[in-house]
């Protein structure tokens, strides 16, 4: 369904911006160093913050002595939890979920520390150098309370409790159930399963977290420039925590150098820098260094999934059950809670498949690590990895081709809307179409025959498929995080033509690399009848719209775009009304395009500038009542939101000598609805797949049993670089969604499909050796060990 206006006569002639491969208008400034990030702000004589971070995983703070630090050159103030206790209210990541304990969020650790890297004290000095010098002079005595590093240990009897008030290390527990999974499983012709794990990952945005707060003495007001993708949420939370009304607390996300979720939660440092600005009546700056970013920004994944899928003899999946342990780290995050990542795993485990009965149980377990939070794909990279591995295991057990078993289980076009076993409803999306398009583009049959040849030569060549579906652009009926009380279901667009005829479109969304300045301008240009280059998009500024949240959960094209379309419609009517006066024509005969209002079939036209002048600056031409402000605001709520889906196919070769995996082919067929800008869509897919390759082959945060981070630098935390990312082919199955504009969200999908497709390809490559893949990342070391074990096993058999 497409709720766009029916085509009008001039639509066919008019150049369309939506759908055109327009180059990103933000790129010239970002690529030539003219962008302005939070750290680029230059407030008057700013002070600099540095944080002393815990060296202990779990310990009581018995003494902090800051006297020497305070006396150090250039130091203005040293803050600890005790010294700021009256300056704020703790922020509580509330949720209506039962079996959930909300850990309060404090700017500095109070009483005890719960992970290595947690901020304990803050030094404020005239330079970052002097601040870091002073950090070394702070003395802290810790009384160790016993590290809790592995989640399996955290749930054992007698494990030290991170939060005494919770009474358990299980911070959240949920179960989803449909049908009689036990008896369906029993009736299954084959059952496949195993223990699957995806280790902990760092989102690793290129720009580390960065905050600049500008203090305005005149009215005790502050402006926080934050590298956040949720500036609206940050504004509302700090407003409440510091008891500061919104008109004295402006939060701006200027240019932001990537987030991938790591800048999508409220951070203790964000609260602290605002507290410090008010206490000292000064502007302050802080930018995390890479070590701080890796060890204190929210982290990703870290789940262990015991899962079993039952199939009937025809390869139809009839039952699915899973027990998930999510290693959520030491605290809940605001606003998403610690349930966000692990609960999403069980919500999405049935995927795009029609599985009759389901039981998915999840526990989010506290450990001495930084909190997990949103990360591109949230939960679904893991749920897809598990479900797609189970599909392949089922196919193998039944002797069915992996492509065919998916075709038999995917929701078919005529079956939408379809409610999967976990309760999620998929709207009409090209599930089967993506599968077919990916198989055709990859040359699936030819790949299989290449594989047969390779195997004859003793080479380890494998093909992996992953199909998935995700909810995007979700409206008010579904909370982004379970039971969360804030409104994530709407976004506002405010479009104004000023007295010079210039068009400004303000949004609450907050691009941190998605190119929304370009895509939203494309939509506004088309729907307002303006020229693309005349539209300025403002976003990420809490002063521009009354309420907003930001960009996350693949929502901005759907919600921002939908709001833009509605606001344009209202403003376009105003333009036509004015133009009908100026052109002395019937409103219905007026068409607006190219920045002009034109009487259809004539050469009579007025420009936006002439219209603006008549409305604002001219007291004679228009009757008073016709001088309506050329502005329209619309808050759009898609209510349910929409589905996006894709199939990824990877072909890999494993080198038995080095145990390295080489990706020889990569194809993505995706349905993101109506495409606003194909260059941006392709870029999002490429970037997402690159991060998925990271999850599949490279990236891993390693904490030892004492809770110390062993991979805290970019030498040890290995991300894919250009040579490790293959060329990929991206095919678009463009089926319009039911929401305004027909868009679907698509910023995360690449990361959801890639780990599963690559895992399946590796398992397929190694299947002659009897090796299965159940843990990611599949590093060369792990492949080496699996191959060694397989050798031992086959030796044992031949004996």
């Amino acid at each position: 369904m497409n709720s766009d206006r029916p085509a009008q006569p001039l639509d066919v002639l008019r150049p369309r911006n939506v759908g055109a491969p327009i180059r990103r208008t933000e790129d010239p400034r970002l690529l030539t160093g003219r962008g302005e990030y939070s750290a680029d702000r230059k407030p008057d004589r700013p002070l600099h913050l540095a944080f002393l971070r815990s060296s202990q995983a779990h310990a009581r703070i018995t003494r902090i002595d800051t006297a020497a630090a305070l006396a150090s050159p250039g130091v203005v103030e040293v803050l600890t939890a005790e010294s700021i206790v009256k300056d704020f209210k703790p922020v509580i990541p509330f949720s209506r979920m039962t079996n959930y304990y909300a850990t309060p969020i404090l700017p500095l650790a109070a009483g005890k520390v719960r992970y290595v890297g947690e901020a304990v004290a803050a030094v404020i000095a005239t330079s970052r150098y002097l601040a870091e010098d002073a950090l070394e002079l702070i003395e802290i005595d810790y009384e160790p309370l016993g590290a809790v590093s592995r989640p399996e240990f955290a749930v054992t009897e007698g494990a030290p409790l991170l939060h005494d008030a919770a009474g358990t290390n299980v911070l959240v527990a949920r179960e989803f159930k449909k049908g009689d999974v036990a008896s369906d499983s029993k009736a299954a012709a084959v059952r496949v399963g195993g223990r699957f794990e995806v280790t902990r990952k760092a989102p690793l945005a290129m720009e580390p977290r960065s905050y600049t707060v500008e203090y305005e003495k005149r009215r005790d007001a502050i402006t926080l420039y934050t590298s956040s993708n949720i500036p609206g949420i940050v504004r509302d939370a700090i407003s409440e925590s510091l008891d500061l009304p919104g008109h004295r607390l402006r939060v701006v996300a200027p240019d932001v150098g990537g987030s991938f979720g790591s800048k999508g939660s409220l951070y203790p440092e964000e609260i602290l820098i605002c507290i410090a600005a008010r206490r000292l009546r000064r502007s302050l700056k802080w930018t995390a260094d890479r070590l701080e970013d890796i060890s204190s920004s929210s982290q990703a994944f870290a789940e262990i999934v015991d899962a079993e899928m039952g199939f009937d003899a025809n390869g139809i999946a009839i039952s699915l059950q899973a027990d998930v342990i999510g290693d959520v780290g030491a605290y809940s995050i605001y606003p998403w809670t610690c349930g966000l990542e692990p609960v999403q795993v069980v919500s999405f485990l049935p995927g795009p498949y029609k599985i009759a009965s389901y039981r998915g149980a999840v526990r989010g377990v506290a450990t001495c690590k930084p909190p997990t939070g949103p990360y591109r794909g949230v939960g679904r990279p893991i749920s897809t990895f598990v479900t797609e591995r189970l599909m392949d295991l089922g196919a193998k057990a039944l002797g069915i081709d992996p492509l065919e078993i998916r075709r038999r289980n995917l929701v078919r076009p005529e079956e939408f809307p379809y409610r999967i076993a976990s309760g999620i409803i998929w709207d009409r999306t090209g599930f089967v179409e993506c599968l077919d398009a990916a198989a055709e583009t990859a040359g699936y049959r030819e790949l299989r025959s290449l594989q047969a040849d390779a195997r004859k030569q003793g080479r380890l060549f494998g093909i992996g498929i992953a199909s998935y579906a995700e909810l995007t652009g979700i409206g008010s009926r579904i909370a982004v995080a379970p039971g969360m009380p804030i409104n994530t279901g709407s976004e506002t667009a405010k479009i104004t033509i000023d007295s010079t005829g210039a068009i400004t479109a303000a949004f609450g969304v907050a691009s941190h690399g998605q190119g929304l300045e370009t895509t939203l301008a494309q939509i506004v240009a088309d729907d307002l009848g303006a020229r693309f280059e005349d539209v300025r998009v403002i976003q990420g500024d809490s002063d521009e719209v009354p309420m907003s949240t930001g960009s996350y959960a693949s929502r901005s094209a759907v919600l921002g775009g939908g709001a833009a379309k509605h606001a344009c419609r209202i403003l376009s009517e105003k333009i036509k009304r004015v133009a009908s006066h100026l052109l002395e024509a019937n409103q219905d005969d007026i068409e607006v395009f190219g920045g002009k209002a034109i009487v259809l079939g004539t050469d009579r036209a007025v420009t936006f500038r002439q219209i603006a002048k008549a409305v604002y600056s001219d007291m004679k031409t228009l009757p008073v009542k016709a001088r309506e402000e050329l502005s329209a605001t619309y808050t759009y709520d898609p209510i349910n939101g929409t589905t996006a889906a894709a199939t990824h196919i990877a072909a890999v070769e494993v080198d038995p000598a080095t145990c390295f995996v080489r990706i020889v082919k990569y194809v993505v067929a995706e349905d993101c609805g109506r495409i606003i800008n194909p260059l941006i869509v392709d870029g999002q897919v490429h970037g997402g797949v690159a991060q998925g390759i990271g999850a599949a082959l490279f990236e891993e945060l390693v904490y030892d049993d004492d809770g110390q981070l062993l991979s805290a630098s970019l030498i040890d935390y290995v991300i894919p670089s250009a040579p490790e990312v293959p060329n990929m082919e991206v095919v678009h199955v463009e089926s319009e969604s039911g929401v305004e504009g027909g868009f679907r969200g698509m910023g995360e999908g690449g990361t959801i499909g890639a780990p599963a497709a690559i895992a399946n390809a590796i398992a397929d490559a190694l299947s002659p050796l009897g090796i299965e893949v159940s843990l990611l990342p599949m590093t060369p070391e792990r492949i080496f060990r699996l191959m060694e074990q397989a050798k031992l096993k086959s030796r044992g058999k031949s004996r």
Partner: protein
Amino acid sequence: MKPAKFDYVAPTTVDAAVEALVAANGEGKVLAGGQSLLPLLNFRMTRPGVLVDLNGIQGLSFIEPRGDRIAIGALTRHREIEQSPLIASKLPVMAAAMRHVAHLAIRNRGTIGGSLSHADPAAELPMLSLFYGAELSVQGPAGRRIVAAEDFFVDALTNCLEPEEIVVEIEFPMLAYDGWAFEEVARRFGDFALASIAVSVRRGSSTIDNVRIAVMGVADTPLRLKAVEGKFSGVSIDDRTPDRFSELVMSSVSANSDLHASSEYRQHLLGKLAARAMRTALTAKE
């Protein structure tokens, strides 16, 4: 991540640099390309009292033939070595290895003197200096002395120099060989090696006259495998030669474990690379 306070001097002669190090009384540190030193400073893992910047000293950057050797100035950047036609024709194993040295931006700044002095056990130039049997010319308060590469590397990130000494140039003998190979495996192109081997072979029609072998990534310093060299000179060549060589190399080292690779995996890699390298060296038509 800001360095602790230090003084900075930028002498224009080696003599002045040595004087500055003497004056620093053991608290001095030499800055060349800075590709390893600056991160260590920023992490405050090293806290010199004085940073002695060599970059203003003229005449320390050169690549020139000197009899049967090639001399390279300590401030010569990796990129210059990588692109030098002289290196390509006279020290081909080094030329092959240079493209594995980190990334272009780092090769543009990093220097050979700095890389040798830093003594990373998984860096290419220290290994090559062992492979070629290079001699380092070192200047200190008492003047210049020559240190053989095999005496230079003491431990991981530790060389044999006194705190006042500076590497000024390195001489690499041109080896005689009939075939050679350089093999390296790193997690990503440009990363520190998980394992690497350099091999050159002099051979008759059916025997190996002598072989030269250096490896890295498998111990606290790069290693020249002289015992294997001894065992492999005079052996006759057949189809099994690369595999026998591989077994000998593997059994002659005991690799370390770290976050990226267990000792078993490193050993396995080294064995595979050794076989591959010997195969290449034996088939090369020179």
